[in-house]
């Protein structure tokens, strides 16, 4: 690799990491930092990042110098989802805030603690699953995270426990004093026959740029069910790279929801490994972009064993000069016969300046499978608009009706009533729903 500014940037990040964390004391961190250094940030021609020049975004907007301490945050509750009884975890600038967090479910039902503390105490579940599913050799952001994460949440739902109360993790970046870099690492383990819901919501205050590198590893044991929500609805100074690495065992059920509604830059890597039979996995995504937001969803579903089902529905509306990117890979391994795998990506472009790049990638080595994919990109259906207008509905309302209907298909799959109400209100607001 030639010496480019990307390398300089990588070097700056490495020294920033070394200043904060004694990586030499931990073989995994040390190895990860070396890998990060070797790989560097994805270069502009990197196949997986070609529409998402993360190095350029970071270089242009961050110095990676030590950030000044921000003052205390007032009025955290304004970021909370209203009307939901939840186990609330608050992370401020990547640091767990005991003062603002509140777990109401009994500890016999769900264990929520600091991942660092769980690992230090040699918690057997945490040590069994930590860093087992993330591949740090092929993704430098994963390596960076593994070398540099300072805090994170470990959630363990023991076998046979059904947790009705969702866990909501609020990540709040305080960007009032200057730029702000957060590197968090979570681990979620859902025991056999368990059931839980985890919601992540990202917010900030202040006008400086802030970047979050978040990795969440998830293990879903036999016959367990897990719903994961990521609500990305911040201000336009948020830059974020997410990796969600999910490993599923026999007859487990996972639903993921990724709502990207506002921010500057989002890259969501969602990887599901279906290592069992009778698994059901649903991936839902909705990205409503405006301004110059870039949102990139890269998903991989890997059918490793026979008789499982995966379904993916991602929809996007791009307004102004926003950029949407979707890449959906489906792997069906040679012995994963009787696999059902479906994927759909639908996009609406509202302006000439908005763009979307969509790419399905199916690699199927088994012969007795049902797989399908479809992607569409278009403008708002003029004939439908005319139809609504011809009944006396003004053009703005007609547009809002159609956009809301388009987005609503994803919202329909949200089962939790208060969460659905909240998302509905945010989406209605974004689409200027007035009917």
């Amino acid at each position, binding site marked *: 690799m030639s010496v480019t500014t990307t390398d300089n940037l990588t070097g700056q990040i490495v020294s920033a990491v070394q200043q904060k964390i004694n990586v030499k004391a931990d073989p995994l961190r040390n190895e990860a930092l070396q890998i990060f250094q070797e790989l560097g940030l994805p270069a502009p021609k990197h196949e997986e990042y070609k529409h998402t020049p993360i190095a350029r975004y970071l270089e242009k907007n961050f110095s990676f110098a030590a950030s000044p301490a921000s003052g205390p945050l007032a009025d955290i509750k304004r970021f909370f989802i209203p009307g939901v009884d939840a186990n609330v975890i608050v992370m401020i600038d990547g640091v767990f805030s005991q003062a603002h967090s509140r777990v109401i479910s009994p500890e016999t039902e769900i264990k929520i603690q600091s991942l660092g503390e769980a690992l230090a105490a040699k918690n057997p579940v945490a040590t069994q699953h930590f860093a087992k599913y993330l591949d740090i050799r092929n993704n430098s952001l994963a390596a960076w995270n593994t070398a540099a994460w300072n805090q994170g949440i470990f959630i363990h739902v023991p076998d046979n426990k059904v947790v009705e109360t969702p866990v909501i993790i609020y990540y709040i970046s305080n960007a009032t004093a200057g730029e702000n870099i957060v590197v968090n690492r979570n681990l979620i383990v859902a025991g056999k026959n368990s059931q839980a819901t985890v919601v992540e919501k990202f917010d900030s205050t202040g006008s400086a740029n802030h970047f979050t590198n978040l990795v969440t590893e998830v293990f879903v044991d036999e016959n367990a069910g897990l719903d994961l929500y990521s609500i990305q609805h911040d201000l336009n100074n948020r830059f974020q790279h997410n990796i969600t690495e999910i490993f599923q065992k026999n007859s487990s059920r996972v639903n993921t929801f990724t709502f990207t509604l506002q921010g500057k830059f989002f890259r969501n890597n969602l990887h599901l490994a279906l290592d069992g039979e009778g698994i059901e996995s649903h991936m839902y995504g909705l990205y409503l972009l405006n301004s110059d937001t870039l949102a990139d969803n890269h998903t991989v579903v890997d059918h490793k064993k026979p008789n499982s089902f995966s379904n993916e529905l991602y929809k996007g509306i791009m307004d102004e000069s926003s950029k949407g990117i979707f890449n959906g890979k489906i792997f069906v391994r040679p012995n994963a016969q009787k696999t059902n795998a479906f994927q759909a990506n639908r996009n609406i472009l509202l302006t000439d300046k908005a763009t979307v790049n969509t790419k399905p990638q199916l690699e199927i080595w088994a012969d007795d499978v049902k797989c399908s994919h479809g992607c569409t990109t278009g403008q708002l*259906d*003029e*004939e*439908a608009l*005319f*139809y*609504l*207008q*011809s*009944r*006396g*509905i*003004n*053009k703005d*309302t*007609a547009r809002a*009706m*159609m956009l*809301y*209907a*388009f987005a*609503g*298909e994803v919202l329909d799959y949200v089962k939790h009533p208060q969460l659905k109400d909240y998302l509905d209100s945010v989406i209605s607001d974004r689409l200027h729903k007035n*009917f």
Partner: protein
Amino acid sequence: MLSIKNLQAKIDDKQILNGINLEIKAGEVHAIMGPNGSGKSTLASVLAGREEYEVLGGEVEFLGKDLLALEPDERAREGVFLAFQYPVEIPGVSTINFMKTALNQIRTHRGQQPLDAVSFLGLMKEKMKLVEIDQSLLNRALNEGFSGGEKKRNEIFQMAMLEPKLAILDETDSGLDIDALKIVANGVNKLRSKNNAVIVVTHYQRLLEYIVPDFVHVLYKGKIVKSGTKELALELEAKGYDWIKDEVSVA
């Protein structure tokens, strides 16, 4: 009510309407007939304000207003209703929500209070009977997965709900079997009054047996070449359109 003078219009680079003149008074039913490609549906579309059509000249006055200066939704709020030849399927938009939004925007324009949910549903039930449309159909997304007949009945249901002053039925009979045709025609007839007018655009005389017109106009090459009463429709049914074409070429 409606006064069309020398209306000319084109789509893409093709002029379709070559000077239409037509006067319609309240209480009248006018049938527009003509061979394929004569401009019947274009006329309906231009009156409703479809954007693809460009008006090249002429005037259309509707209840004292310059209709051509209005947006499609403004025309609808003034009382124009187009029953589509091909009603559009709109997934995700519920028929009930759509109808409530439309009706209340029209009511607001007329200076009436918007209907609350209860009164709206009451009105809906009443109008559903008129076109023998089932509630389960209206609980679905707008026209999504409806059969051809169901779509056309939904058009007349919407017309009944919105109570337009001028209804334009664009080939509403196409794709209907005789039973559906009777239901649709019956619905239209019940909505006829001395205060409103109907334009029935059709290729065949069949529909006019059930919606009896006061006047019949024959459109050919973008002009009205012959006008008469309902007997003209019967004559066209018996003799086809060729004699009209011959008459025009002789003239």
